[in-house]
């Protein structure tokens, strides 16, 4: 994707990736040279179940335009059940954000295994594309954290 062609909006995207599958998947995307936009910054967590809704809201508060969480496929969690809990938590949280009128495209969950470098890259490309189409996050922003 050609970032340069877009207008000046440069989204900030936070990706929470579980250590065992998705972070490894991102590593594989890297070693396979599968590009995705640099707007995506990955935070490594041990498991998707480590991702607290607080983190997601904090990212938006601090100016993120999109937050994506990646974990092992259901059934493949390194810790057996972590992603099941994460799945429920995120489903409910995203539903609530949507209910409050925050664009649902700003949040996403994807299951990416350590072997799915291609998927990781594809998902990130899609997600960034989506965030570009949504534009800047203004509904969950904190004005104090804006560029002064």
């Amino acid at each position, binding site marked *: 994707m050609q970032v340069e062609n877009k207008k000046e909006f440069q989204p900030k995207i936070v990706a929470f990736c579980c250590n065992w599958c998705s972070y490894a998947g991102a590593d594989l995307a890297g070693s396979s040279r599968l590009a995705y936009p640099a707007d995506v910054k990955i935070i490594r967590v041990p498991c998707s179940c480590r991702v607290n809704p607080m983190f997601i809201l904090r990212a938006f508060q*601090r*100016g993120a335009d999109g937050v994506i969480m990646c974990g092992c496929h259901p059934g493949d969690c390194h810790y057996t059940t972590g992603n099941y809990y994460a799945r429920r938590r995120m489903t409910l949280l995203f539903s609530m954000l949507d209910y409050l009128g925050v664009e649902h495209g700003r949040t996403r969950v994807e299951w990416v295994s350590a072997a799915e470098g291609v998927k990781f890259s594809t998902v990130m490309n899609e997600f960034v594309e989506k965030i570009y189409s949504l534009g800047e996050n203004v509904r969950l922003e904190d004005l*104090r*954290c*804006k*560029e*002064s």
Partner: protein
Amino acid sequence: MMYKIDQARLGELFAAIAEKKDLFLPVKKADQTDFALWTKEAEVDLDTLRTVKSPKDCFFPQSETLYNTSLEEGKLSIDAAALCDRDFVVFGMRACDVQAVKVLDNVFLADPVDTYYAARREHAVLVAGACHEPEETCFCKVFGIDAAAPAADVATWRVGEALYWKALTKKGEALSEVVKEHLTPAEESAVEEAQTQIRSIIDKLPYSHLKLDVFKETPMMELFDSDRWEEMYKPCLACGTCTFVCPTCQCYDIRDFKTKDGVQRYRCWDSCMYSDFTMMAHGNMRTSQMQRFRQRFMHKLVYYPDNYEGMFSCVGCGRCVSKCPAALNIVKVIKTMGGEG
């Protein structure tokens, strides 16, 4: 000098004020009325007896930035927030609200002066309305406040189709001057009947005859050590509702917020009802809710009057009476402590 304006033309009056100054007045938003900046679209609500939040926000906002700091290569810089430098009008206050501002003045204007508050006070013109339909939760009379004649910069009455307007101070007169083309002179006597009416209703209100002598006559430590606190505090949920709707509560906290490139130090309302209010490095001076509950009322009814010539830091607005989730309030405290009228 008494003036009047047709109530139907209040919009014009507001627009005229807003042209020169910021205008705050009771605005209905999502079914609740609070003071807000006037705009053409705002749904002005002068009928609601009292706003949920008192107008103390206008002088002592719930949250205000004091200064920003940033650190660059080991060097700190401090950028203080600007002080209020633009006149504003608070329209639609009540007599109790006006008295509450005096209570706040005693605290914030005492040495060392709080310049943020002082600047706002300096630039503020208070326009208050008489309470034509006081409610059962009102007890301003107990504090010697006359709801029929609010002691603001400008007092107003709504009688018939007209709003009567009378400047009581120089600031008030200056404001009258600004809007004089919208006002027409009127008789002083036009509001007298309404005043009598108001006073007679107030006399009938259930709380109007509370007696506060007990707080002046009893030694402080006797009140402090009373067993009644233990009975009273229990339903208290330790929320801050009473504090935040109270027009005279002025406790605050100073906190830091990490912004993008620095730290914003801001001040925000705090409540002595909160369990961590007195939590400091060495420990907590008031560890039980009873102590915190007692502090709030002792402060309003004993400590404050002790410092300010007998003036209570309660104005009988009744906000806590109607808003406490557990139906506790200062009236119950006064009565329990022996202040029944």
